[in-house]
Each structure stands twice: as structure tokens, then as C-alpha cells.
């Protein structure tokens, strides 16, 4: 992960800044340039709720590079209040604690580190509410 690629996404990853279509109100995370519902190209910035529910989940036991020390970890699709669904880990709990429908809260986390000397990547995670 090069710093410029990481840096570009900071508003989304640190503050859950999403785009809300000015015409039909659909919210996009990450923001888009055109609304897939009404083709409108004007958006307002909104911050997503930090509360949500688990729509589905799995326990990752074989990790991709950069996540090896975290296994087993729970990966989930979380439905945030307000209607946006996002992929995030459900951390700080045992794999057996997560169920479909579990209420969660979004917290700030370290995602991983790029080697011993690269940038440290931050972002969001869910924790059981």
C-alpha cells in the first residue's frame, strides 16, 4: 500500500463520509460520481451512522497477506442505520459471538501495517454493541 492510495480514502475510512444523491437521496459509500438509481450527478457529503446490524458473516481462518496475525477473525457485511451496507471485520469478540442480526457499533481500528517500515493503515471495524 503506497501512501497516496491510502491517503485518498481517509475521509471514508476515518469518518465514514459518504455521498448522498441530491435528487433521490440514495447514499453511496464510497461516494460515486453518478447515482445508479436516478443518474443524478450531484451529491452531498453525509457521515454514516456508527450503529448497525450484521447481515452476514464468516470467520476467516486463512488470511490474505497483511492479516496473518489476526486469524481467526470475523468478516461481516454490516447494515448501518440509514441503509448503507459495508464490509468490515467484527473485532474484539470470539467467532462464536457473532450471529446474523447481531447489533454492532463501528469503531476506529488499525487495519494493518505495511511491513516493518511502511505506513500504518487505519480504518473501521465493528464491535458487538
Amino acid at each position: 500500500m503506497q501512501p497516496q492510495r491510502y491517503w485518498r480514502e481517509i475521509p471514508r475510512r476515518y469518518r465514514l463520509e459518504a455521498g448522498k444523491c441530491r435528487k433521490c437521496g440514495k447514499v453511496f459509500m464510497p461516494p460515486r460520481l453518478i447515482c445508479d438509481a436516478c443518474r443524478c450527478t450531484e451529491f452531498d457529503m453525509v457521515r454514516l451512522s456508527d450503529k448497525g446490524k450484521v447481515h452476514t458473516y464468516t470467520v476467516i481462518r486463512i488470511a490474505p497477506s497483511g492479516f496473518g496475525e489476526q486469524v481467526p477473525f470475523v468478516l461481516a457485511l454490516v447494515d448501518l442505520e440509514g441503509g448503507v451496507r459495508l464490509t468490515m471485520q467484527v473485532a474484539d469478540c470470539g467467532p462464536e459471538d457473532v450471529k446474523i442480526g447481531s447489533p454492532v457499533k463501528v469503531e476506529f481500528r488499525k487495519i494493518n501495517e505495511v511491513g516493518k517500515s511502511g505506513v500504518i493503515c487505519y480504518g473501521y471495524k465493528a464491535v458487538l454493541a
Partner: protein
Amino acid sequence: MRDVAVIGVGINKWGEHWKTSLRDLAVEAALKALEDAKVDAVDSIQIGCMSGGLFAGQEHLASLVADYLGCAGVPASRVESACASGGVAFKAAYAEVAAGLSDAALVLGVEKMTDVGGDEATYTLGTAADQEYECYNGATFPGLYAMMAVRHMHEFGTTRRQLSMVAVKNHDNGLKNPDAQYHAKLTPEEVERSSMVADPLHLLDCSPITDGAAALVLCPLDRAKKLSGHPLVKVLGVGHATDAIALHSRKNLVRLDAVEKAAARAYKAAGVKPSDIDLAEVHDCFTIAEIMVTEALGFAKPGEGGKLAASGATALGGKIPVNTSGGLKSKGHPVGATGVAQILELVQQLRGEAGGRQVRKAKVGLAQNMGGTGGSSTVSILGKA
């Protein structure tokens, strides 16, 4: 539009080819297809390859292969749509021939996956998902399909055993395919005892890492009648569609919209319906995928793909045999080659050259190839001419 026929097929046994490079894998399969078609020249080449760059450090693959095939000068392009690269390359060649741009088109699919370690392979396959919003948070392909499986089980009562039955059936078929990577009979218990990769998917629910290539030669049907010594196989219709690549952007996790749309287009073009299909090769990168794809293709009602798999209907000799080649599960999954090899299986079946896995009286076959978690899909229907 001209009618198009597949007049040549070529494949080598799939597996771990330590001694063979990316380019030689491709050329070996291509030479076999040309020999099978009894042609010595083509006027276009389409290569399906997901990631020559990340798996083997090689881009600009189409020209490289054209050169090593001894036909530098011929227009060649690489087609990429993740694991559907092969299916989309087939579509591109089909369109060229149908439109009259080519009179003999070579379709190649290739992937050299064992030149990188497990971590890097997982990373490379992950590039088919949303890098910034799925993979950034630790998503893997087994993980994404596992989340679909959890939802499918939750909404429809699909069972763990039904998933296992897909693996068992495809490995049974693979035993009869000499080109398959794995020749091993499995029991459902063995699937369920294999190590967990992403709950509820075990290692034996997942397709393997494979080196492999497959090739086809396409030409106008009229020309094929003069050229080929094989029973003629005609392309009846090709459908292709896309969907959001991020699972979280999909309307529904238990339906594969891109497959449904591609299937509708292919059925319409071919003028056939699901019940007309005698056999299907589908994208079983994970057992849950085959279950969901059989629903999207109309072989089972939504939510009943698991029951269909467990009923035996998709086994050889069943009502609609699925993945007679062994599927991605047993035959292997060199990602860019998979979609091409699916067509190759249909051709062998429709010619009546499928040996121990021959589907009797096969007249119409369907191949479904899928990219990512369903962000792209092709459905191709072939029939005896």
C-alpha cells in the same frame, strides 16, 4: 451475423506444472487445438488471462503468445474479467467470427498460478474483489463466498451436507476426466473434516490453485462443414452480464444477478429454455457457487439449488448433469483458462468424445463462467449442428 462453429479443442492435463512457463502452457494447448481443427493458421487470437502480471510478472501476453505460436503478425488481444476471462475471450472470438471480422479465430485461456506463494496467490485472486472496500478490510474469496453461503443457509435452509454433495459429485466426475488436476473420490464426511477456510467453507469446498491452459478454434459454420472431421458443434447463443463487484453493493446476496441476466440473454439468443439443456458446465469455484448458479440458470427454483445438488439430478446420469468435467473443484481452476475449458468440455460431450463421462444423447450444452463473486458472468450455449 454468421453461424459459428467450434472446430478444434486443446488442453493439457491441469495441475502443478513446475517445468512449464506461462507462455508454453498457452502454446501447448493452442497447438493441440489447431491440430484438432486441422488448420495451420488463424486470423485472430483472444486470450483469457486474469493476471499474467501478478501471477507471472508478464503483461502484453497476447503478442508474446502469438510470437511463440509462430504467428507473430496476427492480431491478438488479452481479455480480462477476473475468473470469467476465458468466457469473455470466447465471447469476443465468437463475435469476431459471427461479425465476419475473422474466418478462423483462436481462443486461449491460460493461468500460471504456482509461480507465486500462497499469500500472493490469495492476494492476486483478491484483486477481483473491491480492493479498497473489501480486501482492505481482510476479505478473501473463500470469505466472500462463505458470507453468501451463510446467507443462503439462513434464508433457504441450505445445509452443510448439500454443499458437500457438490464436491463429492464433481470429484466423482473428475475421476473420469484424464485432464483433471485431482483424481480422488471424496465422501461428504471428508469434505466436512477438511480444514476450515472461512466458515462454513472447508478446504474441500474450494477450487484449487492450478496451472493450466485450454484452447478452441472457431470458424463460420459454413466453413466448418468443409474443414472438420469431427461432428459439428455450433454456438447457439452467448450471454454476458455484469453486476457490482463488491458484495455489499449487491441488492441481494442469495441471487446472482449477472448470471441470471447472462442466462436470459443466452437462452433468448439460442432459442432454448433451461429444460432443453442436456448438460452444463458451471463455475463451481466454491461448492456454494454451483448451488447458486444452478438456481440462476433456472435448473432449480431460487433457494432450491442445495436440494437439487443433493437429489442426484446434477450427477452423471441425472436429469441435468452439471460439471461432468469435474468442474473447477476437481479439474482445477487456472482462472483465465476455466471459461475456455468449460466450452471444451461441451464440445467433447456434443461430439460424443467424452469417454467415461459421456452424457448420452447430449444435444445442447451450457457453459457458465463467473468473475469474482458474480461481478461478471458469461453463459454460452452450444449444440450439435
